[in-house]
C-alpha cells in the first residue's frame, strides 16, 4: 500500500544513496583492496597478502607515529575535557560579563588547525618567542623550546590543541549544566552541601553523556590529526611529532607507496571502530533501556 508521495522522498534521497554507496563504501573497498597488493605509484593487482601490513608495523616511523598519536590523544582529550569543564563551571557561577568570557574561550575553535599551529609555532619560537622574552626579563635559565626539542615537541602540539579545543568542551558542558533543573540546586542548598561538592557529586555524574559526546568528538579529531602537525612541526624534530594521518599522506602523495599508505589508512579505520564501537554500544543499550515499554 505504498503511495506515490513516498516515491518523491525516495527520489530525493537518490543522490545521497549514490554518495553513500559509491564514495563511502566503494572507495573504501578499493583502498582496503589496494592494501593487500604491492601497488606503488600505480595500483597493481598482484596480491601480497599481509606483506604491506608487515612492512607497516616494522617501519620505525609508523610505530613512532602510533605512539605519538596515543600520547597526544590522551593528553589532548584529557586536557580539553578538564580545562573545558573547569571553564564551564566557572562560567556557571553567575559571574559578570559571562558572554564576554565565553566568547574569549571559544574563539580559537573558529580558527583552522593551520592557523593554530602557526600561532603556537611562533609563540614557542626559542630565539624570538616566549623564551627570549622571559630571559630578557633576567631569568636567563628559562627554557621553553618545545617545538625544537625532540622530547617536548609532542607537548607543544597538545598545548596548541587544548588551546583550540577546550572552548568546545566548555560550550557542551555549559549547555548540559544549564539543562539541569534548578530545583536540584535548591535541594542541595537546603541540605547545606558545599558548592564544589555539588559540582563533583551531583552535576558531574549527570553530565556523563555530554562529556562522552565531547570526548568522542575530540577523539575522532585526534585520529584525523594532520593539519596542525604539518603547520607547526611538520612531524619533526626527527619523528617526534609524526602522526599516522601524515604518514599515510606522505606515502600516498610524496613517496608514492600506495600499498603501504592504504594499509595505514585501513589501520586508521580500525582505530576509529575501536573508539566508536564501545560508545555506540553504550548508547544502544541506554536507548534500549529507555525505549522498553
Amino acid at each position, binding site marked *: *500500500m505504498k*503511495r506515490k*508521495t513516498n516515491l518523491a522522498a525516495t527520489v530525493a534521497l537518490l543522490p545521497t544513496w549514490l554518495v553513500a554507496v559509491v564514495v563511502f563504501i566503494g572507495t573504501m573497498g578499493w583502498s582496503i583492496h589496494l592494501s593487500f597488493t604491492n601497488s606503488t605509484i600505480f595500483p597493481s593487482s598482484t596480491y601480497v597478502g599481509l606483506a604491506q601490513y608487515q612492512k607497516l608495523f616494522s617501519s620505525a616511523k609508523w610505530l613512532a607515529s602510533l605512539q605519538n598519536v596515543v600520547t597526544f590523544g590522551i593528553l589532548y582529550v584529557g586536557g580539553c575535557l578538564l580545562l573545558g569543564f573547569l571553564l564551564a563551571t566557572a562560567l556557571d557561577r553567575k559571574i559578570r560579563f559571562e558572554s564576554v568570557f565565553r566568547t574569549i574561550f571559544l574563539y580559537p575553535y573558529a580558527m583552522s588547525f593551520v592557523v593554530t599551529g602557526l600561532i603556537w609555532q611562533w609563540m614557542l619560537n626559542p630565539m624570538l618567542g616566549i623564551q627570549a622574552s622571559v630571559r630578557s626579563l633576567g631569568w636567563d635559565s628559562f627554557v621553553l623550546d618545545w617545538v625544537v626539542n625532540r622530547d617536548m615537541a609532542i607537548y607543544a602540539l597538545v598545548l596548541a590543541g587544548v588551546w583550540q579545543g577546550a572552548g568546545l568542551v566548555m560550550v557542551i558542558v555549559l549547555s548540559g549544566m544549564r539543562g539541569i533543573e534548578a530545583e536540584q540546586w535548591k535541594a542541595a542548598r537546603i541540605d547545606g552541601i558545599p558548592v564544589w561538592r555539588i559540582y563533583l557529586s551531583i552535576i558531574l555524574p549527570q553530565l556523563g553523556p555530554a562529556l562522552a559526546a565531547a570526548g568522542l568528538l575530540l577523539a575522532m579529531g585526534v585520529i584525523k590529526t594532520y593539519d596542525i602537525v604539518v603547520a607547526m612541526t611538520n612531524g619533526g624534530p626527527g619523528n617526534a611529532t609524526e602522526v599516522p594521518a601524515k604518514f599515510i599522506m606522505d606515502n600516498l602523495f610524496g613517496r608514492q607507496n600506495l600499498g603501504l599508505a592504504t594499509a595505514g589508512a585501513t589501520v586508521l579505520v580500525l582505530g576509529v571502530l575501536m573508539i566508536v564501537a564501545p560508545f555506540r554500544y553504550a548508547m544502544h543499550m541506554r536507548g534500549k533501556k529507555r525505549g522498553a515499554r
Partner: protein
Amino acid sequence: MQSAVSIKNLKIAYGDQTVIEEMSIDIAPKEFLVLLGPSGCGKSTLLNAIAGLQDITAGEIWISGKNVTWEEPKDRGIGMVFQSYALYPRMSVRKNLSFGLRVAGLPKAEIEARVSRTAALLHLDTLLDRRPAELSGGQRQRVAIGRALVREVDVFLFDEPLSNLDAKLRNELRVEIKKLHQSLGNTMIYVTHDQVEALTLADRIAILRDGVIQQLASPAEIYQRPANLFVAGFIGAPMMNFIEGHIETGDGAPVFESHGLRVDLSGYGFRTPPASGPATLGFRPDHLMLDGAASGMPTLPGRISVVEPMGSEAVLWFDWAGHSLSLRLMGDVTLRPGDGLSPGLDIAKASLFGTDGSRL
C-alpha cells in the same frame, strides 16, 4: 441509507504487532462518533487510517459511498484537526486557512469567500493577519478547526483537539464544537481519552481497548448498561463500585450473594438466562440511596471514612466488608467521617458481569 464513513474488516499491524484487529464500523451521515479509550488503544491510529495518513494492513475504508482505501488524504473529502493544532508556523492565519485551497488551485475569489465565511463563523475575522505564535491556545485551536471547515467537506476528523488546553478553555470550546456540529450537520469523528468530552459530545461512543471495540453505543447506554467490566470501570467518576460474589439460581428468583449480602435479582434485566456461578456486581455511586432501606432495597451498612464535598454534590466513601465503596449525594452534606450509614442498592440500575468480564 448510505453510510458517511464505513470501515470494513480493517486491520493495522506493524510487523507482528497488531494495533487494530478486524474492525468494522458504519458511521451515519451527520453522526457525531467519539472514539474513546486509554492511550495506546489504537484510537488515533484508526483516525489516521481514515484520514489516509496511516498505511493499513487489510480491509477497506469508504467515505461518502466511495472506496478511498488507496486514496491520498486530500482526495478523501475530509478535514482534520490535530491535537498540537499543527498550524503552519511561518504563515499568517489567512494563509493557514487558504493553503489547502491554494494547493488545490481554486480561483482566488472562491478562496477569499470561503476564508471570510469560515473566519466569521469562528470569530477569527480580526486575527487573519496574525502569525500562530501571536495567538492564544484557544485561538490557535479555532484556526485549526477553521482549516478543516474551509475545505467544505462532509467528514471532519478530530484528534484529541482539546487536550492541550486548560480546563476552562476546554469547556468553552467543547460547547463551541457541539454548536458547530448542530449548525453544520457534518459527520464528525472525534478521538479523545476524556470521558466527559465523549459523554457530552457524542451521538455514539466507540470504546476501544488494545485495538478492539469494547462497546459501540449511545452515551446513555454506555453509562447505564456497560457491556463489560472494562467499559464499566473506564466510564464514570468516581469509578463504579464492584463487589465479587456469586449467583444462586434456586427454586425462586436468582439471588446474588456476597459477604452476607443477599440481593434479589428478579428486578435485573438479564441478557441471557441466569445461571449459578461466580459474578461481579457493579453499581455506580449515584445508584446507592441513603434512605434505601425504607423502600425495601438490600442495604450495605458501613462507616464513613472520607467525605469529598464538590460544591453542588458530595462523594462519601464508606467501608463495607473490606471494600471501600463510594456514594454520591446531592446538596449539602452534614455527615462526617466515622458516622454510620446503611444505604440501599437499586438493583434495576446495577450491572452484573460474568467471569469473562462481559455483562450478564
